[in-house]
């Protein structure tokens, strides 16, 4: 019910479009605070595999996740186009590594299809829908889910 509401709200707004493994993904511009160039990430031990580590964002230490891994996409080398998109949920900032940032697009709600039943469970949990902008298909990510760790209270056990 609540998720339904969120989906409708977010579908109307502007989205930041980025590329991951050759496909287009989008996230609500209200959740993406900024996009910064790739920088040195300090690994943090005893964290889930997809947590790359932490970076210094103007004096703040924020975690960075590998969005490909988080979404179950194949790993890839970093390139010159690689960026860190910084999202903010409930005051917590988290960086996401994306292959490239394309543009900011307007998406009207009637151009958004709900997530298909054909999608894997992981995708359906993290995806708000699929939008059609021009001839591109853009998968709209639910950052409010992706950037909040459900296992936060039980960090990965040592060994």
């Amino acid at each position, binding site marked *: 019910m609540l998720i339904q509401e969120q989906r409708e709200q977010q579908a109307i707004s502007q989205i930041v479009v980025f590329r991951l493994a050759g496909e287009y993904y989008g996230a609500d511009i209200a959740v993406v605070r900024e996009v910064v160039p790739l920088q040195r990430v*300090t690994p943090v031990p005893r964290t889930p595999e997809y*947590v790359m580590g932490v*970076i210094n964002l103007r004096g703040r230490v924020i975690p960075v996740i590998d969005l490909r891994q988080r979404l179950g996409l194949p790993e890839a080398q970093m390139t010159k186009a690689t960026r860190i998109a910084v999202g903010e949920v409930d005051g917590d900032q988290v960086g996401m590594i994306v292959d490239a940032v394309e543009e900011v697009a307007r998406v009207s709600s009637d151009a958004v299809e709900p997530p298909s039943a054909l999608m894997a469970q992981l995708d359906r949990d993290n995806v708000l829908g699929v939008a059609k902008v021009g001839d591109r298909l853009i998968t709209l990510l639910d950052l409010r889910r992706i950037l909040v760790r459900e296992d936060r209270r039980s960090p990965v056990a040592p060994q």
Partner: protein
Amino acid sequence: MGSGFEISAEDIRVFLDEAEELLQTMEGGILRLETDAGDPEVIQEIFRAAHTLKGSSATLGHQRMAELTHAMENVLDRLRKGKLTVTTELADTLFSCLDVLKALKDEIASGEPASVDTAEVMRRLAAFDQSGQPGAQRAPEPAAAVSPQMPPLTPAQEAQVKGAPARGMQAYWAEIRLAEDAAMPAVRAFQALLAVGDVGETVLSVPTQEQVEADQIDGELKVLFLTKETPERVRQILEQVPEIAIRTLAPYSSAAPVAAAEVAAASQAAAAHEAAAPQATAANQAPAPQAGARAAANGENGQAARSTKTGLRTVRVDVEVLDNLMNTVGELVIERTRLQQVLSRLEAEREGDDMAQVMSSALAQIGRLTGNLQEEIQRARMLPVDNLFRKFPRMMRDVAQKAGKEIQFVMKGEETELDRSVIEEIGDPLMHLLRNAVDHGIEPPAERLAAGKPAAGTVILEAYHEENHIIISVRDDGRGVDPDKVRASAVRKGLLSEEAARRLPDPEAVNLIWTPGFSTADKVSDISGRGVGLDVVQKNIEKINGSVEIHSKVGEGTEFRVKLPLTLAIIRALQVDLLGTTYCIPLGSVVETDRIPTADIRTVRQREVIVKRGEVIPLLRLAQVFQLERPEGAEEPEEIFVVIVAVMGRQIGLVVDTLVGEGDVVIKPLGRFIGEIPGISGATIMGDGDVAIILDVPSLVSSVQEEAGRLEAAVR
């Protein structure tokens, strides 16, 4: 609350702050009253505080508080005049009054009616008020002898005051302050005297009318006078005199707070006449009363002027503002480092460039300034530990009374300063250690006497600096911790096997007290045995990067030493490298660093150890603990770097790749997304802008201990 204060929130805040201070003054005073057996200065101090509180609570319209403080004032007044002596019962009553006053203060703070009854303490106070000499009238001269505050009236003046009621008059005491910037203070004082004369008879004034006319005035005028008018009317008339402020206007009792010397000056002329009279007045004893009075008055004025100045020089600041400032400066330091890097590139590319030189000197300046700024802000966050300590004497008194112990509680180093966030965190652990000392440390009086010790045990709470740390020590001269008793207790509670307990050396056996679920008390008392164990104390101290150690000798006593960082936000750390990432180890727990030939590593039950000065130190390879992957084909080096750290006397060696250096680091949280990670307490930003990870040494050490425990269990 229903009493409908027409008072602003700001007024209430000011009142609450003031009330808090006054209550603390009273509490400290009452405690000293018991030990110093009625030192008149102490009584005066409590009296003044009660009096001030009475005034401000009445202004606020809080009737119950005003009535209670008034009743306290009466009892204190009798004490002051020597009509009462200090007994435990009296101190208890005064303490109960304080408790009620605190509840009433909270009532004002929260707006919720307090569930306290003032009637009970009022009744107890009244008992003291009536005991002692009956009758209202004063036996003047003997009282004057015991109370130097009594204005030494001449017999003629005394008679004048005494006869006032018969003439339908009442005696009043007024203290009038002349405006500091008054152009003609003597004229104003004269006008005030005239105004008093208009409504009644002046008995005496300080300074005298003659002195006023001779322009000998010090900014203050005190008058004892008789009048038929109401005080309101007198006030009205006095208020017509410009450039004066009425500080006190109250019915006169012989105890009006007047310094004897001042009055002596005023009555010197009279005293000269009365010198032959049988009554010895203070004036006779005061050498050169005139000069003395002036000096005293000057001193007081000087002080008043100073305190007004300091009043203007301090500002209340929200702690949050200080925190924000601290963070901002932290970022400034980081940005400066970035500029520094740009500069080095500039210098390399364009050698001898003017711009680069200007930038270089500006950067050096900025570096110095940010350093100063950081230091100043840190200083602004420091508070003397006295803020924390002063609530303990009362607590110790109550705890000792309840436990049936006699103690002498000594505090030292109250002026030692600590970051206020540390002070906030350390209160509960200290309280627990202090209660523990009374409850478990100090023996009952009979047992102490039997052991050849004084009946009263001593508990010392002391704070002092030690290098980059503050040490707070809680020590007692009680029975000490018996390692055998601890062993037995630990076995009984199933914390370890009998076999393991026997093998444990004494110091380590004593350290079992920190194990969760441990308590040496044979019976659980309601003081420290409340289910909150020493393990919680230790955890809370470690949470703020502190540590606590116990040193104990059976029969001689116990000392708990709490070692605290000066500030929470910044720590000194040893920086080490591990697979290209920098890790920081808080210096507080570092014992030493060493290079050890790989050949010297031995194993004990599958764990790598080194032997140093005969001590076996387990090794912890950080790369393994953190599951860091070494690049393929990396060879085991011939030597390893070991950082030996200690937590509560337990040493372990952390194996790292290289040592990088040492420096102050600003602790930053890893954030909620990452959450808590065992072995890591946070992150920091290094000079080059990179992030480094800060190790949580206590948790690393206890992980080794737990592992040893598991092995132990497996063998069994």
